[in-house]
């Protein structure tokens, strides 16, 4: 669904697409490129029992990590949770079910979902626990695992710039999984630093075509301290900031 050529909506309108138990993809890598305003919106609206698909769980106070810390996630597909001890703790306690996928395979499963494919053939992890209990197929004398594509009810991304049609441009290494996640949601909402008129972006520089993006919201910006800022400022190894 699109709402004409102006896809910008209010936070209140965006929150109508969230529901308890939703499958949710969030762009970002270690919290870099994760959408801060939309993550906060999920917390404010008390959405829970989320099935989260994300490259990682950020840090406990950064990006999708906040959803873990606030115990909003019951199931997770990710490549890594090492920078979020809270995720590890919930996994050990059994309150968070975690499925690990090698990072490149996870990215490609999301891309496949967004591109309308059923899955991918991949050999990364064959011969390890990753390859156990996977369907396999031989193509050209090589064995591959069949990895089903991933999609989600809602996909949330962060972009530097959007026009009102939802064409997106990302920011340096904050691009990461965002262009993939943007394509793989039933509903995709992009949180954007700067919203510009249709026609003002060079079509050559657009990374995600607006056809994949249902709605855009204005970002309120990052509201967390990065780990390196904490270390620089205080010499502390952790020092989780108050909210």
């Amino acid at each position, binding site marked *: 669904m699109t709402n004409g050529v102006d896809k910008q909506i209010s936070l209140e309108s965006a929150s109508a697409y969230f529901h308890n138990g939703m499958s949710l993809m969030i762009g970002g890598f270690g919290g870099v490129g994760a959408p801060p305003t939309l993550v906060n919106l999920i917390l404010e609206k008390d959405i829970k029992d989320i099935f989260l698909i994300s*490259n990682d769980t950020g*840090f406990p106070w950064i990006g999708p990590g906040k959803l873990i810390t606030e115990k909003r996630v019951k199931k997770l597909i990710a490549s*890594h949770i090492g920078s979020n001890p809270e995720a590890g703790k919930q996994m050990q306690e059994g309150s968070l079910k975690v499925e690990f996928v090698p*990072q490149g395979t996870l990215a*490609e499963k999301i891309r496949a979902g967004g591109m309308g494919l059923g899955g991918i053939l991949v050999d*990364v992890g064959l011969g390890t626990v990753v390859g156990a209990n996977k369907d396999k197929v031989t193509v050209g004398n090589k064995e591959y695992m069949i990895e089903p594509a991933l999609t989600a009810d809602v996909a949330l991304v962060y972009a*530097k710039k959007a026009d009102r049609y939802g064409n997106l441009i990302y920011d340096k*290494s904050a691009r*990461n999984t965002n262009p993939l996640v943007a394509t793989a949601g039933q509903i995709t909402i992009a949180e954007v630093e700067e919203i510009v008129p249709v026609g003002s972006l060079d079509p050559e520089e657009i990374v995600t075509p607006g056809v994949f993006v249902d709605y855009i919201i204005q970002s309120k910006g990052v509201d967390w301290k990065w*780990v390196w800022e904490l270390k620089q400022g205080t010499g502390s190894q952790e020092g989780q900031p108050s909210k």
Partner: protein
Amino acid sequence: MGLGIETRHRIARRAALEIKKGMIVNLGIGIPTLVADYIEQDLHIMLHTENGILGMGGSPQPGTEDGNLSNAGGYPVSIQPGASYFDSATAFGIIRKGLLDVTILGALEVSERGDIANWIVPGKRVPGMGGAIDLAQKAKKVIILMNHTDKYGNPKIVSNCSLPLTVREGADMIITEKAVFHCEEGKLYLREIMSPYTVEDVIQTTGASIVVDEQISVFQ
């Protein structure tokens, strides 16, 4: 980690010798990150990161960091001339297609055949594999940098890994504070030791069969 800063840097300095002109290189977290300090500028290396940079540079000056320009560990970096940004699927396409000349990783255990275990200690530490399996399985050359023994003094180089594997027969080299090993045709070759250790030290603290060369060089 248990290794002093000087020792960690010596391991990194030795690893940097494996990096040749024009190579595409991915450095893992920990000691591997330090290798960047020892790569000569005129080699025109392109550093690759899993989060989507080819041509990563060093740390920016304090005060000029950009939260949206970081390495895979989330720390601020800069870029080199010729750098590019791309999404995660492309970052791993570069790895999976075999375009990485070298990846330098840490490990929990390495077997004498080059099996690597580096992402899970079942029931204790389960951080997830991140990009380790992609890297260890697909880079042209896999160099492991690690402590020779664990914190209890047990060998980390073993006949068979006890931990779940990251990759079978993936390691090409292992560099520890005591020695440099080459994994070739399913065997572990010792041709070089790190000062001030002796071949005897190395044999006694390694839990695997080693083929010891007649000519042993010493890395200072």
